[in-house]
């Protein structure tokens, strides 16, 4: 297709996009329902979801979905998200988001921030899934472990929740044009030039070939 529309580059395929959205939406749902379960004052959330009991099970089910999506996402993106030497440089420059920087190292598919987000979701995702399971089946665990599970689940939620917002911002209005990658799967060549220049080079080579 790219031959026809030289200005647009296909950056994601459908599987990737579906996986992303399952992961994102289940995560978001978990976050919202989780917040509803965490703060009594937000009773509106469980009320909308059909009550506390329904909320509990929706939370658990979406957690299971999240876990499966996470597993898929891991195998899909882990390779592309492996950290490289340049990533450190990128991070040291704050990805260019916070102050004017001289020269960011050229990024392949994902920049260090994106990679960090990925690994954060993987690590804390696994943790939140495992602790979630621990809470679900807490009666078969030693009480010390079960108690840790409840605490670490909350901690993971805090981390994931925070990063989730960062991701949301940078994926949408923070970086205009990016959101297309997860809808149509196509971004402008210029966008690619900006965010994944090295990958674009490879991409073009492959296309030519």
């Amino acid at each position: 297709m790219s031959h026809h529309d030289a200005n647009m580059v296909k950056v994601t395929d459908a599987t990737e996009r579906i996986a992303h959205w399952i992961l994102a939406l289940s995560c978001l749902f978990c976050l919202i329902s989780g917040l509803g379960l965490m703060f009594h004052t937000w009773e509106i959330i469980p009320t909308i979801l059909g009550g506390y009991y329904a909320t509990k099970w929706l939370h658990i089910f979406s957690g299971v979905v999240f876990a499966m999506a996470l597993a898929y996402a891991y195998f899909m993106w882990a390779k592309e998200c492996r950290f490289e030497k340049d990533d450190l440089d990128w991070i040291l420059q704050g990805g260019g988001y916070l102050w004017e920087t001289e020269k960011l190292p050229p990024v392949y598919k994902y920049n260090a921030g994106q990679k960090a987000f990925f690994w954060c979701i993987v690590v804390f995702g696994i943790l939140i899934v495992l602790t979630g399971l621990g809470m679900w089946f807490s009666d078969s665990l030693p009480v010390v472990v079960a108690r840790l599970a409840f605490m670490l689940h909350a901690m993971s939620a805090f981390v994931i929740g925070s990063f989730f917002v960062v991701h949301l911002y940078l994926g949408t209005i923070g970086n205009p044009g990016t959101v297309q990658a997860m809808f149509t799967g196509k971004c402008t060549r210029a966008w690619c030039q900006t965010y994944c220049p090295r990958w674009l080079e490879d991409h073009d080579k492959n296309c030519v070939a």
Partner: protein
Amino acid sequence: MKNMDIVKVIDVTKCTACRGCQVACKQWNEQQATRTHNWGSYQNPPDLQSNTWTLIRFQEYVDKDGTFKWLFRKDGCMHCTDAACVKVCPSGALYYTEFGTVGVHRDRCIGCKACVTACPFGIPRHDVRTDKCYKCDLCYTRLLGDQKPACVLSCPTGALTIGDRATMLKKAYARVAELGGDANVYGDKFVGGTHVIYVLGEKPGVYDELPEHPKMPATVLWWKNFFKPFTLIGIGGVAGAAALHYLIKGPHEVKENKEGGE
């Protein structure tokens, strides 16, 4: 008269383990029995259950002087002032009543088992069939109706008594003074003071399943006092920072037709 601070005293030195309380509790609260087996002890069911909110624990014990003692302890909810279960309960099923006790809105319970793990005394129990958690509510409705809790009413020997906090504590301490030796009052000095207070004949460490220094678990404190607010602060903070970033720095623009990316 609301907010009357009620305390139930369990004087284990008067308990004869007749288990009137254990049955009275089931009778009033309409809890089913389970089919048990003799496991070499009078204590049955072997532990608290979702349908057994109070239980007499039997313990054969030889003290430091070599004297044999058969210890009986009525186990059940301690009704903490700083109750871990209330703190962790997501749905508001567990709450502080006007008597200072910990009540249960059973219909609100979602069976998350947070209370089961959080309780420093290991009291609440989860029932798989109803997917709810259960524990003693000190017969809240009876208290409202100006009646003694079922267990207290049934106690033949005065091992269970109930009244306002100050009076009951005074009585408990007087009883301990009368008993002398290792006797002690258990419950008024931790978790904000429990609303069930023991008069123990032996040191707390002697009794099975009775924590010597019960306290709100650190995990609960981290969870509820740190991570819980920080989740909000984290999410809110990040969102705020993003907004500021957008306003101050603006969106990150793609530079058209320029060599190299940033």
